[in-house]
């Protein structure tokens, strides 16, 4: 008696069906199945509730009416064009920087975009920045005037033009003089925009989400040189410098930012001559700088430690002075290695800017959200939930995008996280 087996395709060629996927991922064991069912039900319930809240039940009128207050505080209406121009110019500047980086990468051969065709490129961009574009679109849909649409459109155009310009510039090699001119120009544009904007609206009146963004940026930028100096001092063999920097770093890192902000609020003016009487925004930025510098110092110190000793030894063998060793060989490598950690520090500072609202009474996004729920039209209706969700959403979009970019950079640079 022969038993003929039914011909079947080899097991390795069978594509797993939906049933297989379910069994493997959700119902492997009895316990697994129970967990799947329970959590599955929970997730579905939560999804439905969230969907209903966001699209059906949520009373978003309060956000729509107060959008300007939330985003830029009480910016004078007549100065809104100044703000629009600033955004457009910064869009151009951002485009130029991105283009320069892309051009240089292409020259060096490290460009990931080089290997992609147009469709892949677009989908890559959408995956990376789609969330931000969607959020800006959402905010634009909530506005009632044409001004923001126009500004954002012009900013987009400016960014694209800047990208093209930057890429053209980045693909060519320039002489030393041209390099210096370029660097000065690039550094000068933000400073120029800053001066132009503060001439219209003084720093003390920068409020809303605009304050959160700009104070975080200012804090990180200003604290960076201080942090590098501190890190170098900490690694130096000169005992005075070393102990002074260690003392600063350890004390500042052991202090809560909230307490430092409260202290700055009540006492910064005592430490400066009465003529300087700093405004709240200045106090916040000074405190952010002092606080961030200690953390940047630790990050840079980690970066300096990650540069192999052989580098500085080789530099010494070549007869480079200590200053040239550090500035030409060690520091560039160290800073390149810690870019992801730096971005992480920026994200942390960005989230911590909300503390300035509570500690100093600045009308930032969170504080503003609390204030609008007390307006005569909106009080007593429990609208704080909608307001907080909006605030959380804006912060989440910013942090999430930046942290994903930082992870991507980490993977690209091949830097270990631990």
């Amino acid at each position: 008696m022969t038993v003929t087996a039914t011909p079947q395709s080899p097991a390795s060629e069978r594509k797993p069906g939906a049933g297989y996927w379910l069994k493997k991922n959700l119902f492997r064991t009895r316990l697994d199945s129970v967990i799947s069912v329970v959590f599955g039900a929970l997730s579905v319930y939560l999804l439905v509730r969230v969907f209903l809240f966001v699209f059906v039940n949520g009373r978003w009128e309060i956000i729509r009416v107060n959008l300007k207050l939330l985003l830029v505080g009480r910016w004078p209406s007549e100065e809104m064009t100044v703000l629009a121009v600033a955004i457009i110019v910064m869009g151009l500047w951002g485009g130029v920087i991105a283009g320069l980086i892309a051009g240089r990468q292409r020259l060096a051969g490290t460009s990931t975009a080089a290997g992609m065709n147009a469709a892949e490129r677009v989908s890559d961009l959408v995956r990376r920045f789609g969330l931000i574009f969607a959020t800006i679109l959402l905010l634009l849909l909530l506005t009632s005037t044409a001004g923001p649409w126009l500004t954002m459109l012009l900013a987009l155009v400016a960014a694209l033009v800047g990208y093209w310009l930057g890429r053209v510039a980045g693909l060519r090699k320039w002489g030393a003089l041209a390099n210096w001119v370029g660097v000065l120009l690039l550094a000068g544009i933000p400073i120029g925009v800053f001066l132009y904007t503060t001439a219209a609206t003084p720093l003390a009146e920068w409020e809303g989400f605009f304050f959160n963004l700009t104070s975080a940026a200012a804090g990180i930028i200003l604290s960076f040189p201080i942090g590098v100096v501190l890190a170098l001092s900490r690694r130096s063999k000169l005992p005075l410098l070393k102990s002074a920097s260690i003392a600063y770093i350890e004390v500042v890192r052991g202090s809560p930012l909230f307490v430092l902000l409260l202290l700055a609020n009540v006492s910064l003016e005592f430490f400066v001559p009465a003529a300087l009487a700093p405004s709240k925004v200045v106090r916040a930025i000074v405190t952010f700088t002092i606080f961030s510098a200690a953390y940047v110092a630790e990050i840079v110190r980690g970066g300096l430690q990650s540069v192999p000793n052989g580098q500085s030894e080789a530099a010494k063998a070549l007869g480079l002075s200590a200053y040239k060793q550090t500035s030409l060989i060690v520091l560039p490598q160290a800073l390149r290695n810690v870019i992801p950690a730096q971005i992480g520090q920026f994200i942390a500072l960005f989230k911590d800017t909300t503390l300035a609202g509570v500690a100093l009474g600045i009308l930032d996004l969170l504080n503003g959200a609390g204030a609008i729920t007390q307006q005569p039209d909106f009080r007593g209706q429990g609208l704080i939930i909608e307001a907080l969700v909006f605030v959380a959403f804006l912060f989440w979009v910013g942090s999430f995008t930046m942290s994903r970019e930082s992870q991507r950079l980490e993977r690209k640079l091949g830097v270990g996280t631990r």
Partner: protein
Amino acid sequence: MTAPPTTKAPVPEARTPFYRNVKVLAWAFQVTVFFVVLAFLLWLWSNYLTNTANSGIPTNFDFLSNPASFAIPGAEFDSNESVRNAYVIGLMNTIRISIVGIILATILGTLIGIGRLSKNWIVRKLSTVYVEAIRNTPLLVIMTFTFLGVVLQVMPTIEEAWNLGFIIVSNRGIGVPWYSEVSGAALFAVVALAFVGWWAVAKWRHGVSERTGELARVGLYGGLTFLLIWIVGWWLIGPTFTLPMIDGRQLEGGIRIDPSYFSVLIALVIYTASQIAEIVRGSIQAVPVGQGEAASALALSGFQRMSLIVLPQAMRIAIPPLGNQYLNLIKNSSLGAAFAYFELTNVTQITVGNGSPAVPAFFLALVFYVALSFITSAFVNLANRRFKLVER
């Protein structure tokens, strides 16, 4: 014929002039920097003294002996006690919420971190959503939400409190049963003794298992011993447990969990757990895959593989970043000041508002926070050294 090698007479060493001597330059540099920094600090300090002297504000620590003129709920502290005692109570509250927060956040964070690596798709996705959503939201937003949203909106007023028999939930406090008439230290000592008992039984059973080869069954024997010691010990001490009751507008009996404490704690735990989950996930992934495979080859169950092989090794890697998160939690507890929780920062703010000089008061608070940070880092470093892989 080669000329005989001439030995040159040693050339006297040229002394480098002092302005090119590296050592001198280094010292000159750091002394200059030091004096510049010192001059700057002294300028700041003299400004401070001038400005405060002009308005008659004291710059010493005498204010500590003044009466506080505010009361702290939940503590035996009335408005005539000194500011110094207020500081002590504030410090105790900070320590209390930090310890409880650290324990809860570690447990929750570890569970979610393991969940992110689960084979179950739903658990994996849920954990990822949790971590990515919470990690990128500012802590203050979460805390505002737990206070204004959860405590004030969701929890009922005292008149409509949810009375579940042994727990009463309202927006002015959660009543839980608590012991009375016995010292808490004695009860705690009994629980500690029970843990010691478990450990001793575990050692015994491991010894038996080594000698005779029978199953150690540490969980069974140890667990039974633990429960035995706990129950007998508490029965001997004889604490009375009071259930919470609503008396008018107050929660009588038991102990009342302050709503501010509750909301601040929940927010801290939720936020820190998301950070800890990422750390735990990274550490588990850093354990060599071979370890897990070997465990499977030895027929260890998934739970045994995780708890006996992978997790212990992962925790060793995780100790330094975990320690960092603990420090962050302690510092973040200062946000409780905005929500009426009487921890150190809140006490400082109130005394300053009542007339204490601002700079010494906040300086004192900062000293306490820095001291807490140092003590915690010392503990973490100790744990790190203890559990570090000893390498040749």
